[in-house]
C-alpha cells in the first residue's frame, strides 16, 4: 500500500492498469483478425495450385497421370523444403501421383468440389485443400481428387508478424497515455497550489475560513470540512480566551483591595518591623498585578482572540517612540537610562497596534528588570534589509547562551534571576511576534555585554 501513498501513483495504477489489460486483449483480437486474413489469402493460393494441377491431368490408354510442367514440379518439390505436399487420386480410388500418405479428407467432410481442412502430417500441422476435377467433363468417368497441402507454420508466422507490428504502436500509445497521466496529475493538482499558499501564508492566530471560490469543485468539500474544523477550533479557543480574560478581570478588584489595604497598613504601623512585612505584602500584590495583566495580554495575543484579525498599517518607529516615552518615568525611578534610537523615517508594518504596544512594553519592562541601576536600555527601530526590525538592548548581566532557547517559554525564569518577573513577558513577546509572522531572537548586547532582543517583521516594500 505504501506505493499508493500519492494521488499520482493511484491514478497511474487505475489508468495504466486497465489500459495494459486492454492492450493485451486488443493484441489477441488483432491476432485472430490477422489469422483470418492470412488464411483467406493463403487458401486462395493453395486452391490456385490445386487448379493448376487439375489442368495437367492427362489420360493415356489405360491410366490417368499428371503431366506436370517443370516450374510446377520445382515449386512443389524443390521449393522451400517440405513446405508443400500434393497427391492425386483417380476416380476409382487408385493412386496417381504425389505423397501417398498425405492425410485424407476428414470423414465428416461434404462432397463439395473444393474442401479446405486442417490435419497433422509428418509431425506438423498442415492446411490442405481437396479439389474434385472431372476426368472429362460430361463423360461420366468420375472425378480425380487432388490434395494440395502446405505447412501451417507459414501462416502462423505471418499472422504473428502482423500482430507484432500492430503491438508496437499500441504499446507506444499506452506509454504515452501513462506519461500524460503522470504530467496531467501534476498540472491538475496545481489548482490546489492557491489553497496551499493561502494556508501557508496565514498567521497561526488566523482561524478565519479559507476562501472556497478559488478551489476546484472536487476539492471544495475538503475546504469546507477544513473551514468547519477551523470554526469549531476558533470557538473553542475563544471560549478559553474568554475564560482567562474574565478570570483576570475578576482578580483585579480583590488585588486592588489587597494593595490598598497593605498600603494603608504600612502607613499606620509607622517605622516598625511590621512595616517591612506590609511592604513585602504590597510587593507580592504588585507581582500578582503584573501576572494578571500579562495573562490578559496573553489571552488577547493568542489565536481565537477577536483581536487576531485587527490588522492596520502602523508606524513602528512612532509607536516604539511613544511606548518608550511612557516607560521613562519608571526607568528614572530605577536609575536606568532608557533611550530610543530610530531610523528617522517611518517604518511601516501591518499590525495590531494594541498588541505591538504590549509586546514593546513587555520587552522594555523585561530589560529594565534585568538591568542594574546606572545601566542603559535602548529601544531601536530600523530596517534590516527589507525587514522592519525592533530591538531592545540593555547592558545588564545578559542571558547565558544555553538559556536563550528557553527564555521565550511560558513561566520560564532564568535560574537565579530576581523574583520581579513571572516568566510571561518574553512568552507574550513571542506569541505576538508569531501572530505577526515576525521572529523574536536573543543576542548578546553591544561590546559583549547585556542582552539584545530582536523582533524581525516580514519583509515589506519600503
Amino acid at each position, binding site marked *: 500500500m505504501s506505493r499508493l501513498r500519492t494521488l499520482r501513483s493511484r491514478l497511474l495504477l487505475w489508468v495504466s492498469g486497465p489500459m495494459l489489460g486492454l492492450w493485451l486483449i486488443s493484441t489477441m483480437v488483432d491476432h485472430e483478425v490477422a489469422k483470418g486474413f492470412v488464411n483467406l489469402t493463403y487458401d486462395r493460393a493453395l486452391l490456385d495450385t490445386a487448379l493448376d494441377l487439375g489442368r495437367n491431368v492427362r489420360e493415356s490408354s489405360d491410366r490417368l497421370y499428371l503431366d506436370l510442367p517443370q516450374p510446377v514440379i520445382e515449386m512443389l518439390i524443390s521449393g522451400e523444403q517440405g513446405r508443400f505436399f500434393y497427391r492425386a487420386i483417380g476416380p476409382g480410388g487408385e493412386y496417381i501421383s504425389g505423397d501417398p500418405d498425405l492425410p485424407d479428407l476428414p470423414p465428416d467432410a461434404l462432397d463439395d468440389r473444393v474442401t479446405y481442412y486442417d490435419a497433422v502430417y509428418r509431425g506438423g500441422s498442415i492446411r490442405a485443400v481437396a479439389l474434385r476435377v472431372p476426368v472429362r467433363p460430361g463423360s461420366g468417368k468420375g472425378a480425380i481428387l487432388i490434395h494440395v497441402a502446405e505447412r501451417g507454420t507459414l501462416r502462423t508466422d505471418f499472422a504473428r508478424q502482423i500482430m507484432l507490428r500492430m503491438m508496437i504502436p499500441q504499446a507506444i500509445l499506452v506509454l504515452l497515455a501513462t506519461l500524460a497521466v503522470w504530467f496531467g496529475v501534476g498540472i491538475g493538482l496545481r489548482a490546489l497550489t492557491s489553497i496551499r499558499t493561502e494556508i501557508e501564508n496565514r498567521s497561526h492566530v488566523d482561524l478565519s475560513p479559507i476562501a472556497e471560490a478559488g478551489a476546484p469543485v472536487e476539492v471544495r468539500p475538503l475546504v469546507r470540512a477544513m473551514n468547519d474544523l477551523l470554526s469549531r477550533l476558533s470557538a473553542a479557543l475563544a471560549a478559553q480566551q474568554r475564560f482567562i480574560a474574565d478570570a483576570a478581570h475578576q482578580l483585579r478588584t480583590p488585588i486592588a483591595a489587597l494593595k490598598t489595604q497593605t498600603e494603608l497598613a504600612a502607613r499606620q504601623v509607622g517605622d516598625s518591623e511590621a512595616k517591612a512585612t506590609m511592604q513585602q505584602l504590597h510587593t507580592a500584590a504588585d507581582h500578582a498585578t503584573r501576572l494578571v495583566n500579562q495573562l490578559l495580554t496573553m489571552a488577547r495575543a493568542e489565536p481565537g482572540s477577536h483581536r487576531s484579525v485587527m490588522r492596520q498599517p502602523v508606524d513602528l518607529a512612532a509607536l516604539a*517612540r511613544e511606548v518608550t516615552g511612557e516607560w521613562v518615568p519608571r526607568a528614572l525611578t530605577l536609575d536606568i537610562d532608557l533611550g530610543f534610537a530610530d531610523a528617522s523615517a517611518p517604518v511601516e508594518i501591518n499590525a495590531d497596534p494594541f498588541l505591538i504596544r504590549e509586546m514593546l512594553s513587555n520587552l522594555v519592562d523585561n530589560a529594565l528588570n534585568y538591568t542594574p541601576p546606572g545601566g542603559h536600555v535602548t529601544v531601536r527601530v530600523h530596517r534590516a534589509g527589507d525587514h522592519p526590525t525592533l530591538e531592545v538592548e540593555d547592558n545588564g548581566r545578559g542571558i547565558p547562551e544555553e538559556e536563550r532557547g528557553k527564555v521565550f517559554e511560558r513561566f520560564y525564569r532564568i535560574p537565579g534571576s530576581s523574583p520581579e518577573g513571572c516568566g510571561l513577558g518574553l512568552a507574550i513577546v513571542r506569541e505576538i511576534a508569531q501572530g505577526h509572522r515576525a521572529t523574536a531572537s536573543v543576542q548578546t548586547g553591544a561590546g559583549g555585554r547585556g542582552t539584545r532582543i530582536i523582533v524581525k517583521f516580514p519583509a515589506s516594500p519600503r
Partner: protein
Amino acid sequence: MRLLIVEDHPILANGLITALKGADYAVDHAATGEQADHMLATQHYDAVILDIGLPKLDGYEVLRRMRRKGSKTPVLMLTARDALEDRVKGLDLGADDYLTKPYDLPELEARVRALIRRGQSGGGADLIHGDLTLDTAGRRATIKDTPLDLSARELGVLEVLMLRAGRVVSKEQLAEQLYGWGEEVGANAIEVYVHRLRKKLEPAGINVRTIRGLGYLLEKAAHE
C-alpha cells in the same frame, strides 16, 4: 471637601474610605448604582470615585444619569477592564479621569487631588511644580514668589513641560506648541531654549532631563 466612593467590593471600599478620610476628606460610600444615583441626587459632592462594574445599575449608567441632570462634579472612573474601547466610552460619557485596577494608592490620591483642583479652578490658571509656579494667564513664572526671567519662548517650553511633568515631551511636541503660538522653530532652536531654561531652573533644584532619542522630561518634584 466631600467625596463619594461608589464601589461594591467591601474590602476595597473600606481601604479607599480609610485612605481618603486620612487625607482629610469627608467620604460617603455607596455600594450599588441605585444607592449612588440616589445620593448624587440629594447631596453635593466635590468629586466622585466611580467603579464601572457594579451590579444592576453600572458605573456608565450612573455617570450618564449624572451628566444628563447637568452635574459637573468631577468623576474618576475605576475599572477592572483596561481595553481601549472601555476607556474611550467612559471618557465620552463625561468621566474626567480613568484608573485601572489594581492601582497604587498614592497615584489614586494624586488623581483625586488633581480632580478636585480642576473642579475648583475651572480650568486652572496656575501650574505648580514644587517651588515653581507658572501663571498661564499672566504669562509669568515664579520660584518661591521670586519672578523668573524667562523669554516668551522659554515660557512656552516651560508650560508644555509643566503640563506634562514627569512624562516625556518630544522636541516635535515642543515645536508644535510654539508653532501654535505663531512661532516657527526648528529642533536646534528647541535645544537652545531648553538649555537656557535648564540653567535658570537649576538653582531651584528643578531638573529638565534629556531623554535619549525621545525629548525632555521635567522631573517629578519631591513633594507633589
